């Protein structure tokens, strides 16, 4: 059943496949996925918004800030029925004092750390519970990213006020 097309058809097919793909990539796919928009078409069509939306979600304003002896307040929204992870980069034995409170409903949370450079997916949990207010402190047992995983089991978004101080660099929301 399979037939071999003529050389002319083959060249035409290959060239047109590449051209169509290149046009789709440059005007639609790359703008929407990565906000790379050399032609400006993606922006006109509103596609770059998709990439921008996920970027702003991934990098809230606190990202990159260094922890000090003063408390800083970070607001994290946990969308309805979803989980988010908010992390801090900390060297070994660095200390963090924290307090967080939700705007009402309790959240399932897992305070944990992942060693720096680890690729196995290993992580160590310090506290796992469900609560709407927690105060405490911890010392990083190893260098890496430490922070909270919050899971909102309700059907409404829950805002968390996270108040922290200590030796850390804010990584922010993890995708």
């Amino acid at each position, binding site marked *: 059943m399979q*037939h*071999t097309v003529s050389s002319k058809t083959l060249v035409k097919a290959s060239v047109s*496949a590449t051209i169509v*793909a290149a046009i789709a*990539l440059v005007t639609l*796919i790359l703008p929407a996925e990565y906000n790379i928009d050399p032609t400006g078409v993606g922006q006109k069509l509103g596609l770059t918004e998709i990439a921008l939306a996920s970027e702003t979600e991934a990098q809230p304003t606190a990202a990159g800030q260094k922890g000090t002896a003063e408390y800083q307040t970070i607001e994290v929204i946990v969308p309805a029925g979803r989980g988010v992870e908010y992390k801090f980069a900390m060297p070994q034995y660095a200390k963090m004092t924290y307090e967080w409170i939700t705007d009402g409903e309790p959240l399932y949370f897992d305070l944990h750390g992942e060693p720096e450079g680890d690729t196995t997916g290993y992580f160590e949990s310090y506290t796992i519970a469900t609560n709407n207010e927690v105060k405490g402190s911890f010392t990083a047992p190893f260098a890496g990213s430490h922070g909270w995983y919050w899971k909102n089991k309700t059907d409404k978004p829950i805002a968390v006020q996270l108040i922290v101080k200590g030796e850390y660099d804010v990584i922010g929301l993890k995708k």
Partner: protein
Amino acid sequence: MQNNVIKISVLFVIALLGMISIEAYAHGVDDNTRAFLEQNQGVQFIPFLYIGAKHMITGYDHLLFLVGVIFFLYRSKDVLLYVTMFTIGHSTTLLLGVLGDIQVNAYLIDAIIGFSVIYKGFDNLGGFKRCFNWQPNTKVAVLIFGLFHGFGLATKLQEFHLPEDGLITNLIAFNIGVELGQFAALIFILIAINAWRHFPSFQRFSTLTNTALMSTGVMLVGLQLTGYFIN
């Protein structure tokens, strides 16, 4: 007999599509999966089975490759043979990749998977015979690309925090799920292609279809390579 098989297959596909549409419109599905995997320890057979099947059915890159592979196969024996080669390929690297903790860059693997789609489209057009006067062994090609598809599946699974506890059982469940998902998707693709084969438009549009396949492959490669270079 034949009719009954088709009838049952159609019903199965319809039931499955019903499930997909609910799943597709649900918000933050991947996030739920991640949360589930992070919160649950030990053997989770059915959930992993489901995640595997879902990944295959919603993983259009795997499906596009399969469309290319079975496009010109009309004998059940051939379909079975080629799909088995693909399955052997991707199961091997899925199990090896996760158990051996082989880290492969997900973007590069996905780019190769995209390339497999280009390859198959080009192959279906008789491109190798035309250009090089030589036809690479199609069964071996399916097996080799199957190996890459398996690494792709492995990287998806490695993105989650998979606890060691019950890993092998969960992995096997995931793999069985992948096969079930592939089987379900294949039934749908086969019914569509076989139905289409009876019409003259099949011959007329087979060149166009395989050109479109190549084009989608180029898009996948471009998307993944861009992702690789900017990350």
